[in-house]
């Protein structure tokens, strides 16, 4: 598996650039992965990424899109609690792109 070096630390990623070990994740590697995805991280992006990690900690899976939009809606207001807002933040699709930046495994299946 390929390795990337960020801020003096090595990280193993898979062929698609997803972090192999969840525990390796830190803000530096998140910033690097975001850059690779051409996503400029703002506070709104971090809100999503942090929520994904919290949810994953509890459930060992990324949240369903509805669960995510609802959480965002509670935190940032109803106007942001929708799929469109998430796509604005993560244009390749919130499920995959946001998970990647959050260091979570890629969701699989018919999604």
């Amino acid at each position, binding site marked *: 598996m390929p390795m990337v070096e960020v801020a003096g630390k090595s990280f193993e990623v898979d*062929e*698609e*650039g997803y972090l192999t070990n969840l525990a390796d994740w830190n803000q530096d590697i998140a910033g690097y992965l975001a850059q*690779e*995805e*051409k996503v400029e991280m703002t506070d709104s992006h971090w809100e999503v990424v942090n929520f994904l990690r919290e949810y994953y900690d509890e*459930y*060992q*899976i990324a*949240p*369903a*899109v*509805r*669960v995510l939009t*609802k959480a965002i809606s509670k935190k940032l207001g109803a106007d942001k609690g929708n*799929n*469109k807002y998430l*796509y604005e933040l993560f244009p*390749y*699709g919130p*499920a*995959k*792109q946001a998970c*990647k930046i959050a260091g979570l495994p890629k*969701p*699989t*299946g*018919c*999604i």
Partner: protein
Amino acid sequence: MAGPEFEVPKLTEYTDVPKIKEGAMAHVKSFPAAKASQEFLGYPWELTEDWQERAINKMGDLLGKYRSLRVFMDACVHCGACTDKCHYFLGTADPKNMPVARQELMRKVYRRYFTLPGKIVPWLVGAEDLTKETLADWYSYYHQCSECRRCSVYCPYGIDTAEITMAGREILNTVGMGQKYSSEILTKVQKIGNNLGLPGPALEDTLLGLEEDIELDTGVPVKIPLDVKGAEILLITPSADFFSEPHVESLIGYAKVFHAAGASWTLSTHASEAGNFGLFNGNYEVMKKVAMRIRDAALELGVKRIIVGECGHAWRVAYSFWNTLTGIGYGGNDPFSIELQSQLDSRYPQPMHICEYTWDLIEKGTLKFDKSLNDDRIITFHDSCNVARGSRMGNEPGGQFTIPRNIIRAVANNFHDMAPETIGEATFCCGGGGGVLTDDLIEVRVKGALPRMNAFNNVVQNNGVNFLGLICAICKAQFTKVIPYYGFDRSMVGGVHQLVSTAIKLD
């Protein structure tokens, strides 16, 4: 994830047969499966030393097991009827994506090792040794086939390229050349219960959240029950219905239909997946193991009916294979199948498609709708390949085409079909079926969607269509991803039960 750059085909009024471009898609390589998932599935994870012997032995095994495969290897007369019928050929212009060429990748090897002239005078009969280059071609082009079977409709001999692709993938797996996407999914579904890897507690939390949403939205406490023993109906639906947009809108639709009908129903944590990628990989044993989870759940919960949600290939597996795989329906004769058959209610088809269920209730007048709530939508319907060409619905021939359309017409005022040569039995695949729905194959997916996108664009331009109605989780995910490449908005994509959900009246 930005992925490789490629040119998106231009939309045209008709899908013209392209001028061929040799090797146009030869660079496409789906990511190889890793050790962990291949080991779990019982396959090697790198090319074995005895790859040639293993491959030929496996081919012999499959030719012996499936008479159809041998017939397909022998019967082709190179008439050319299939050449312009594959969406991947039409979208990529690569001649190896012509169905006959895809078949020929295996046929030339078959001739060399399994026919007398091929053994003696291979150069006279187009027989070739199996080489690493041929295997690489297989890996590339057997992952550029969505096993949609459109070509087989036009083949005068009925040669089914899908079955050849399935055999090709099984042989590739046997020599250590598995595909990451399918391999991971088949591991997750067997370890966790669904393709997503959604564990029970997460599923429960997600469903509770959806119940809250529905009640907030409608004021009616519609439930989405999980693991309820003694429920009458077990709903088996693709796990994407729990996870993704627009899939979840259809799940909400099913729940509202069950609520309005006063039905006792449940989902199962153990069998929280309708999809069965064992079909795509051509491995009957794996397909059986995945399907068995559903029988186990049905016996455990004591249900009397099994209904399948909006998932194309799942419905083919359910309708055409469950009877002999698991004894759901009739066919299995082991003790558990016999127990299940006496448990299931014989007044209903087993399994039943959610569209059959809903349409039946509409015909009986049980469900009431306010069709005007769908008036902002002008709808067309895309027939999913595995439903269209691999199964049926209802009691009449062609029910798989009429029933979903009947439902749409019952819940909405504006419906326009796409061109007849692109729907029904002749439907074009979405471009993401058969294990192709992965980011590493995005170029194949975008280009393969071209014929469908052309037909869709025509009804968008001529009839103002703004909603592409679907009954398959793969189609939903595929179109959500690829229609923006063609300039359409992803919110145009949705499920038939999403339309039901919008218009249904709840008490």
